[in-house]
């Protein structure tokens, strides 16, 4: 055993271990970087999918091949069907974000900055937060019917809670040493909030916003699945009735792209707002 270890990995003669004969030769291969670009495997999966569809291994009425999905996407885009659905769904998201961000920021700041706010607001908000907000769909339909209100409300709730939590804890976690310095340096209460509390909450708030955006998109998708007479969800639901799996996938891809887009916007925002964190 120890003889084979010595011959297999001459570099470790001084400390032959039981696994040397296994690990020895492969160490060098592992450390070198693979010469394959990262998108290659993705392309491979798409190619396999296409081949599986063409050879009827994957039934087309279960999942359309990538080529069909691409042409369908192009057709829907040119006919304007995708555009108008996109507009409706984006409108819902925009309105939901407007209400949700406003509520999350306002409540988060009130409860983070003032003891009264914390005592009065935090308990009910925390209690509401434990409810899975997507489970409220049946109640929302009872209360608000099936038009836009319940959808916008669901989206607003999706973004409001993560934002509230991150701002609340962000403000509370302001460095007490900085607050103390602000006090002896003669900051007014307003200056303390503006120059100490808010900037120290900002990184937390942006993380909360990114989480909230994810929840908002999820809420939109669920709301549109449940009931919609327009928008991306309507397009997807409609296609399901006619077994148009290509249209369904196009809708999903558009959802994904939109989610990616809003995430990118927030990350750009993050980089600008938090430029003080990095070296110049």
């Amino acid at each position, binding site marked *: 055993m120890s003889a084979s270890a010595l011959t297999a990995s001459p570099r470790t003669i001084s400390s032959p271990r039981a696994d040397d004969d296994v690990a020895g030769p492969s160490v060098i291969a592992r450390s070198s970087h693979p010469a394959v670009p990262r998108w290659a495997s993705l392309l491979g999966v798409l190619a396999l999918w296409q081949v599986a569809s063409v050879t009827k291994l994957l039934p087309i009425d279960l999942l359309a091949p990538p080529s069909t999905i691409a042409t369908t996407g192009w057709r829907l885009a040119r006919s304007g069907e995708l555009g108008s659905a996109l507009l409706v769904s984006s409108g819902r998201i925009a309105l939901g974000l407007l209400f949700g961000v406003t509520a999350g920021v306002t409540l988060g700041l009130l409860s983070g900055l003032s003891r009264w706010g914390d005592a009065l607001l935090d308990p009910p908000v925390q209690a509401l937060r434990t409810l899975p907000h997507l489970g409220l769909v049946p109640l929302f339909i009872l209360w608000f019917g099936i038009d836009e209100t319940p959808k916008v409300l669901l989206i607003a709730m999706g973004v409001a809670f993560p934002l509230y939590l991150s701002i609340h804890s962000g403000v509370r976690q302001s460095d007490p*040493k900085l607050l103390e*310095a602000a*006090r002896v*340096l003669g*900051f007014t209460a307003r200056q303390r909030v503006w120059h100490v509390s808010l*900037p*120290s909450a900002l990184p937390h708030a942006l993380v909360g916003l990114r989480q909230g955006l994810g929840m908002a998109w999820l809420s939109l998708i669920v709301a549109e699945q449940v009931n919609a007479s327009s928008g991306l969800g309507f397009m997807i639901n409609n296609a399901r009735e006619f077994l148009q799996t290509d249209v369904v996938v196009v809708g999903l891809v558009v959802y994904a792209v939109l989610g990616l887009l809003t995430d990118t916007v927030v990350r750009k925002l993050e980089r600008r707002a938090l430029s003080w964190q990095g070296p110049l």
Partner: protein
Amino acid sequence: MNRTAPSPAPAIALRAITKSYGQAPVLAGLDLDIAAGQVVALLGRSGSGKSTLLRLLAGLDDAITGSLTVNGSVSVAFQEPRLLPWRRVWRNVVLGLDRCDDTRANALTALEQVELADLADRWPLTLSGGQAQRVSLARALARRPDVLLLDEPFGALDALTRASMHALLRRLFAEHRPTTLLVTHDVDEALAIADRVLVLRDGRVHGDHLVPAITAHDPTRRQILRTTILDDLGVTPDERD
């Protein structure tokens, strides 16, 4: 705090100050007068209450018994620079000043005194420890305080940087003449900067020594004073270097 005209009353007057955390008193009936314009170093072993005393004077703690008078405006430089990392250096220097005084010009003047005017537009996180501490000093001085409180501001700096900070401080004191209380644990630092050295022990002023200007040029006197202060601190001979 009582804020009246500085002279002829002492800038700082403490009578029978007692402060305790739980049972044990940190300050036990402390009496102290500091004349306007005096630069006082406050020495003491850790836990002797020197930082507590400084916090009282800064108005950061008022749960005490006794009477405390500080005449005039107070400014503090802490052990750590405590700059706002999300505000540029120059903004840090003047933030908190009155509306008409928080100008860039004022910030640059203050930064010039600590020889950092060219870093005015940097983010604080890009500064070295010594630079950040100088900005913190500039911030304290920009307030033109009658009383300047320094809480071991050079504790975290290397020996070379400390030496140049001492020189800088002596120059700034000569120019501004604020009443200064410097908390330190370093006898040599105290002798290098202050014209009076106080030793805090058992919650009281245990030693009170004037440092004549001549001490800087007279190694023998300096050595004698140093030994006396170490005795006051309760440093045994074999603990000394």
